[in-house]
């Protein structure tokens, strides 16, 4: 085998750089200067990015199949066992990294966006306590995410998966003195556990069914064992894996943690809860596309869950007043798009949307962070307005991102979103209902994004006088990342211009070796219906523009209209504003039930374990102790005392002689002498 090119051979360094600095920060960051911390942490992520670019470049020039695996060592040797179908199998979980077009795209997005957000954090977190802790966690997150993406087997992927979950928990609860932040962290962690239990079961089922957990060998094993399309065990595996994806990627019904996750610092929301971690579920589904392709039932489930989540989350985003919460619902909604794409078999389109979404959603979050920074911590859009002139860089980049996410032609979001809509309409697994939901969501996206834009940057200022006093544009370390991301939000989609618009959708071709045949089928469909594709495209853009126009009408022209509308449909408004009461329903159905169960278990603990077990055993101990004390007192000591009594009894007569009278003794001496004398004389 030829030696691997340098950067591919050094693939394992990509996650290692941030891991090293994370370790350093968490062990000794307390004593380091902020400047040094920034340099080290951003530097390590930048190194990862450079190595990712290098690896990407060398992957392009690999001869033959664009796939490379770098195995460091055997991590868990599983030994041999019989799979459920009776094959003798022996696999080891390796600490190995897999570079193919899919993971190459992911490491570029993760390390690139990650680096930009690291730089932004220097400015944003500069005045906060726990600077080293923040960067330590952030680097730990980069390590976990890159491990997740680069893992060559599903167990190592799970390590990264749990690692990012942990970092998410730690960073949501970064301001852990604030009760709501600590609670939000716990909520995220617990809801993710529910999903992860499904993921874990899926892994076990893969191992026992296929006898391998390696991503390159799973398709081979599937082929070798001749699983038919729709085999129940494959459906079970994919459904279980999808439960994991639902938890991590905040889909119905496990999305509830993501809006609360906005308690974390804004760069965290941008990096973890928008650009990278929450897309891990999409990546995982795409990575296991070989399994999913064999389970049409699951694919339908994925598509339906994705579509429903998209429209459901968008509807809640329409009325929220917290700038970050609107973006959170938007993220859930966009993730729904990605799952919709995966569910209709357009994995490449899903990954494409993942990458463009990473750019513009990171930009939106960073922009909102910049707004919050400028307003001294204000997050309520009702108290903003008219900021366009005061913070121009933030405002302009934010507008670019909003245009991109709304799907205005030419910007990145347009290409990826319309690819998904088209595939869900015309793809082999798509249908009109899914498409209609997608388009509806696109309109709502346009509305809520521009509601944000107009309420934040235009109209009359609604903030107080003191706030007005120190509104300032953010420092350069924050605005430069914004500008870079704005550029990416515009140009990031140009790699995937569809054939119908004169492009060649290079992105999809690049990923084709990974997703294989299905992409070919999809492309073949594309060729047939160009006119229809263009019609649909125009329609969806019109819907998005309509959404934008409605936002303009409501929030700039007729500012009293929203209130009237709210008064008219107060029940509906309250339903949306209170987020469909899902949190309350979950509280009643699950959370409180678990609390009840906890109370019952506590009662059981007190009554049975403590009452019967502990108190009973202590009673038993005391009882046996008292019996044994009785034995000691009466049998053992009794024997001793009896002996003493016996000795005293014998000694009593002898003692009588010792009267203590000296003269008595003298008399006995005299008598003795007389006795002896008499004996000798009379002998």
């Amino acid at each position: 085998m030829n030696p691997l090119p340098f950067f591919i051979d050094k693939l394992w360094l990509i996650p290692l750089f941030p891991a090293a600095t994370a370790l350093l920060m968490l062990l000794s960051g307390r004593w380091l200067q902020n400047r040094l911390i920034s340099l080290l942490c951003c530097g390590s992520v930048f190194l990862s990015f450079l190595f990712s670019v290098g690896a990407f470049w060398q992957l392009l020039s690999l001869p033959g199949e664009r796939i490379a695996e770098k195995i460091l060592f055997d991590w868990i040797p599983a030994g041999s066992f019989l799979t459920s179908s009776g094959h003798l199998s022996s696999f080891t979980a390796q600490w190995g990294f897999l570079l193919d077009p899919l993971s190459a795209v992911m490491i570029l997005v993760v390390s690139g966006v990650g680096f930009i957000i690291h730089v932004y954090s220097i400015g944003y977190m500069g005045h906060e306590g726990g600077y080293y802790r923040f960067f330590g966690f952030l680097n730990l997150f980069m390590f976990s995410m890159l491990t997740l993406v680069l893992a060559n087997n599903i167990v190592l992927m799970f390590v990264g998966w749990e690692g990012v979950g942990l970092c998410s928990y730690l960073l949501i609860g970064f301001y852990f003195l604030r009760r709501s932040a600590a609670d939000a962290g716990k909520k995220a962690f617990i809801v993710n556990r529910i999903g992860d239990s499904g993921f874990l079961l899926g892994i076990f089922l893969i191992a026992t069914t296929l006898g391998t957990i390696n991503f390159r060998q799973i398709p081979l094993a599937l082929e070798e064992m001749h699983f038919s399309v729709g085999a129940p065990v494959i459906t079970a595996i994919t459904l279980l894996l999808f439960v994991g994806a639902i938890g991590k990627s905040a889909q119905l019904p496990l999305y509830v943690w993501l809006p609360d996750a906005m308690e974390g610092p804004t760069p965290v929301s941008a990096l973890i809860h928008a650009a990278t971690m929450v897309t891990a579920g999409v990546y995982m589904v795409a990575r296991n596309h070989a399994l999913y392709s064999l389970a049409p039932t699951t694919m339908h489930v994925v598509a339906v869950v994705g579509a429903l989540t998209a429209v459901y989350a968008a509807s809640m985003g329409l009325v929220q007043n917290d700038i970050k919460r609107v973006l959170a619902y938007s993220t859930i909604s966009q993730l729904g798009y990605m799952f919709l794409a995966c569910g209709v078999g357009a994995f490449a389109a899903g990954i494409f949307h993942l990458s463009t979404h990473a750019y513009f959603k990171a930009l939106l979050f960073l922009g909102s962070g910049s707004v919050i920074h400028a307003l001294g911590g204000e997050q309520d859009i009702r108290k903003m307005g008219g900021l366009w002139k005061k913070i121009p860089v933030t405002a302009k980049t934010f507008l670019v991102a909003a245009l991109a996410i709304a799907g205005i032609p030419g910007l990145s979001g347009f290409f990826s979103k319309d690819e998904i809509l088209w595939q869900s309409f015309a793809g082999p697994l798509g249908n009109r209902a899914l498409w209609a939901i997608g388009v509806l969501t696109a309109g709502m996206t346009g509305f809520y994004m521009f509601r944000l834009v107009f309420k934040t940057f235009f109209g009359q200022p609604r903030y107080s006088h003191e706030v007005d006093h120190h509104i300032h544009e953010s420092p350069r370390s924050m605005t430069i990342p914004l500008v870079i991301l704005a550029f990416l939000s515009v140009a990031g989609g140009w790699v995937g211009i569809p054939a119908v618009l004169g492009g060649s959708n290079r992105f999809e071709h690049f990923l084709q070796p990974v997703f294989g045949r299905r992409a070919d089928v999809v492309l073949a469909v594309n060729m047939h219906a160009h006119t229809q594709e263009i019609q649909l495209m125009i329609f969806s853009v019109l819907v998005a523009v309509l959404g934008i126009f409605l936002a303009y009408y409501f929030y700039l022209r007729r500012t009293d209209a929203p209130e009237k509308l709210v008064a008219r449909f107060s029940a509906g408004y309250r339903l949306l504003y209170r987020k469909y009461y899902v949190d309350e329903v979950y509280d009643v159905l699950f959370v409180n039930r678990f609390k009840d169960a906890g109370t019952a278990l506590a009662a059981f603990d007190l009554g049975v374990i403590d009452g019967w077990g502990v108190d009973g055993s202590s009673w038993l101990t005391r009882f046996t102790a008292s019996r044994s004390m009785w034995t000691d007192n009466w049998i053992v000591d009794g024997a001793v005392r009896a002996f003493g009594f016996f000795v005293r009894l014998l000694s009593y007569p002898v003692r009588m002689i010792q009267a203590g009278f000296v003269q008595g003794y003298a008399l006995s001496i005299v008598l003795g002498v007389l006795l002896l004398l008499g004996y000798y004389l009379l002998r």
Partner: protein
Amino acid sequence: MIPTSNYLMLSAVLFTIGVIGVLTRRNIVIILMSIELILNAVNINLVVFSRQLGSVAGQVFAIFIITDAAAEVVVGLGILIALFRNRETVNADEIDLLKW
């Protein structure tokens, strides 16, 4: 010359008086005095036999015993005074500390 048996008789009488004194009297002072009588009875014996046998050794012994008796009285009376200070009695039957 007075025959030896007379002296021995005197000695025996003295000894008997001393023994009876020791055994019967309750006052320790008198007991001590009686012990002196016993010792002196012994001294008489020693001196008589010394003269009869024509050896000085008996007289030397007698002088030793006189010295010894003096020392004994010193010690005995010292104990007696210490005892009296503690117990305010010189009665031997009230001083039964050696019992058991």
